[in-house]
């Protein structure tokens, strides 16, 4: 399904989605983030600081509550997410490509009820990148594209005074069907212009991971490379690179106790992070990933080797957030290229 949407009618589309909580990028305190739409939708963002992964994988998820009266057996009550249906506008194609990667992680071997309950209620409305939103974009070199539809339900392309809107999935068609009247049929000129816009988007120069197909083998051969320590020398061990990543999915599980008599609390899942020194700390005090080099190797290896070995694709989608936001200049493009160049 391909339609034309006059920019003036974008708000009408959003307003027609009464069965959804509509989310779109807005700026608060200088930060672009997805917020419930409460006013006009303006898709003039670069990219959001955080990817839209929170809709299926929030930073905090309650699994169950527990209560135990002294002397009695503990009572557990499962808490399934009660998330509304979300229509998320303004998703960049790199972040869209993050979605199927997360789907794999949370459905391989074990189907994660919490993730899937949320995930099936999210529709991702993508916005093609006519220009790279960041100087550190590198989607093209990791198999993506600024006009990729992978993981999206709808892809919108900005054609100046109107959007070219293409449904990618049935969920996308349903979103468009909710407001059939706001759309019009694309003309031959529209079709020509969207092709031109996409060709121009793909032609924009970007930074690049060199020979990404060879990266898994090169990284595998470089497990013991001294370069890891060298490249991670400045690493401060914070969680920016992974917490802002559209495909990082590691988590921790803790019991949060809210009362002692009776014992009451919640078992919660929260994001965790392979760059934190305590991530791999054993209760003995031994830490198998002692230094920043081993931890950088883990992050980069996961993106460009281990995930590839497991699922046949790079986990990294080239959004560039980890590069732009690193306080000390650690640059995953540079790391992969340097390690690969020096591989045996």
């Amino acid at each position, binding site marked *: 399904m391909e339609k034309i949407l006059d920019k003036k009618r974008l708000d009408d589309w959003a307003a027609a989605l009464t069965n959804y909580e509509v989310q779109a990028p807005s700026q*608060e*305190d*200088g*930060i672009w983030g997805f917020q419930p739409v409460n006013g006009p939708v303006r898709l003039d963002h670069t990219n959001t*600081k*955080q990817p839209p992964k929170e809709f299926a994988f929030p*930073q*905090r998820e309650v699994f169950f509550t527990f209560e135990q009266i002294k002397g009695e057996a503990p009572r557990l009550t499962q808490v399934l997410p009660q998330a509304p249906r979300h229509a998320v506008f303004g998703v960049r194609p790199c972040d869209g490509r993050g979605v199927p990667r997360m789907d794999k992680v949370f459905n391989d071997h074990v189907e994660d009820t919490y993730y899937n309950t949320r995930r099936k209620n999210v529709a991702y409305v993508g916005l093609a990148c006519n220009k790279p939103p960041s*100087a*550190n974009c590198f989607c093209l070199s990791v198999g993506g594209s600024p006009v990729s539809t992978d993981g999206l339900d709808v892809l919108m392309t900005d054609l100046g005074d109107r959007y070219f809107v293409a449904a990618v999935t049935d969920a996308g068609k349903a979103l468009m069907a909710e407001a059939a009247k706001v759309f019009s049929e694309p003309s031959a000129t529209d079709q020509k212009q969207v092709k031109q816009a996409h060709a121009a988007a793909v032609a924009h120069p970007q930074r690049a991971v060199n020979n990404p197909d060879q990266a898994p083998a090169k990284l595998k051969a470089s497990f013991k490379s001294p370069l890891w320590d060298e490249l991670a*020398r*400045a690493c*401060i*061990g*914070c*969680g*920016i690179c992974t*917490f*802002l990543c559209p495909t990082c999915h590691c988590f*921790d599980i*803790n019991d*949060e106790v809210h009362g002692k008599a009776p014992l009451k609390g919640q078992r*919660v899942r*929260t*994001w*965790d*992070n392979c760059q*934190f020194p*305590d991530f791999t*700390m054993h*209760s*003995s*005090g031994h830490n198998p990933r*002692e230094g920043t080099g081993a931890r950088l190797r883990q992050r980069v290896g996961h993106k460009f080797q281990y995930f590839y070995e497991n699922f046949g694709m790079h986990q990294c989608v080239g959004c560039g957030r980890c*590069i*732009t*936001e690193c*306080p*000390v*200049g650690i*640059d995953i*493009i*540079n790391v992969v290229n340097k390690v690969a160049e020096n591989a045996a």
Partner: protein
Amino acid sequence: MINLKDVRDAARDMLAKGEVRAVIGYRRGSRGMFAEPAFLDRPEEADELVWDPTCFHNLSLYLVHDRKHLAHAGKKSGAPVAIVAKGCDARSIVVLLQEHYFGRDDVYIIGVSCEGTGVVDERKLARHLNGAQASNAAFDGDDFVFTTAQGEKRLPAREVMADRCLECRNPFPKEHNLVYGEDKTGRQLEAPFAALDRFEAQGAGERWENWARHFDRCIRCFACRSVCPMCYCDECVVDSITFPISTETTADEKANRIRWIERSAARSENITYLMTRAMHLAGRCTDCGECDRACPVNVPIRLLNTKMEKEARDQFGFEPGASIGGPSLVASFLDKDPGEFIR
């Protein structure tokens, strides 16, 4: 005006003579014009050093890393480590020396004066460049000069400088072994605590509304803690697993460890974390602004720290990082202190 060649020559010379184990400075990163921390072990690497308005990092953090590595490896320090330090960075080193984190002979301070300016705030700069990418940044008097694809862009430094630089009381590193650049002590583009005073001019309701929004936004990536040279504790109150464990620690003890702050990035936990950190920095924070810069979600952490700094100044006339021999705020008291409990 600092002549970069002088800094490089000095670094090369001390590495060649083996007077220092390493030189910690700045070099051009792989990400456009921005500088990144550089660790030089060999004299031939000295030409990598740069000095420009993107040298915003407080490198004294890496002196702390170095001590931790040495301790972990059970090694003695040997020759000192040289470090390029701005005024605020040098004051951080002074605090670390006051706290005996290392000795004066363990560090060789290559001071660099920010002279009439300071370093850039990446967010302010991005707004001024309006989407254009700069490939180089340079100091030029009261201006910063950026090279972009559209040509040279000259901006008055004060428009793109970090807030802490605008309020900086001393851009000159008083404590040093070697120093480059002019001493422009007393140069202040804004009054001390100007940003804090602006914030505090709001009513309590408005202040709370703002802080609630900021606290809610915190994602607990701990970049503020990780980037801070003063946050050197081996055990941090927020890390639920770093409590002392021995072979005698029972499973029950491990399970019942005290957790002051849950891992959930919830408002109550975020407040406890950020306020605890601010309290632990009282009298120690030299307003290098790294926590504020590193925060990916723009939590104005600096306001919390400068609030503590202002309290220390108003209550005790205390200025952090002023002199190595000087007292530290929380490890000293005055005979004339009105509080009986402390005397």
